[in-house]
């Protein structure tokens, strides 16, 4: 089964410091990986994706993610955190054809920037 894991329930970062939100994956075949952000009382907003190519993927709002095949990781990063980045972050992987390749999500990581 295609799955992702987010080992941290919460990450606390001081404004201006770099941030990392961790994600590891387990897939058969090539991974189609995504990061989403959710603000309170809102749906999920797409940040970035890795399909193939460069291991460093750049996305919206200054976020980037590094794909590491040997470590089966896809960590989300930002060089300088903003208070407005405080939100819930989800890593996801495309599932199997049985589910219409629906996204399988991690449990989410709450990011607090102060």
């Amino acid at each position: 089964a295609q799955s992702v894991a987010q080992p941290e329930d919460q990450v606390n970062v001081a404004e201006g410091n770099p941030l990392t939100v961790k994600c590891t994956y387990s897939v058969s075949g090539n991974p189609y990986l995504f990061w989403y952000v959710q603000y309170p009382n809102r749906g999920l907003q797409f940040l970035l994706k890795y399909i193939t190519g460069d291991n460093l993927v750049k996305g919206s709002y200054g976020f980037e993610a590094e794909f590491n095949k040997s470590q089966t990781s896809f960590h989300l990063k930002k060089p300088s955190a903003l208070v407005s980045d405080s939100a819930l972050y989800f890593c996801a992987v495309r599932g199997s054809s049985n589910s219409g390749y629906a996204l399988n999500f991690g449990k989410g990581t709450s990011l607090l920037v102060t």
Partner: protein
Amino acid sequence: GAGVSQSPSNKVTEKGKDVELRCDPISGHTALYWYRQSLGQGLEFLIYFQGNSAPDKSGLPSDRFSAERTGGSVSTLTIQRTQQEDSAVYLCASSPDYRDRVSPLHFGNGTRLTVT
């Protein structure tokens, strides 16, 4: 439309009542997905549509849940005889085609269902 639209945004209902949740996907998107987001349960995939067809309904939590899509556009998720454990945020997403694994899913803002 500009994005995925869901209605109502909030719904409070009494236990035992039926509720209907609506999703209007991005125009031209043939794939539509329903998820449930509960505290402590994360994001749970319920069902997907390609056009009007839902090939696999096994993700629906119980036989009280049903979903349909007509005209390849609007979808409704119906919960009969609601229970308190049905309280959650129900999210809808769409994408151009279910076989297109490259494109992200576009989510609506969800319907927050509270069963009292």
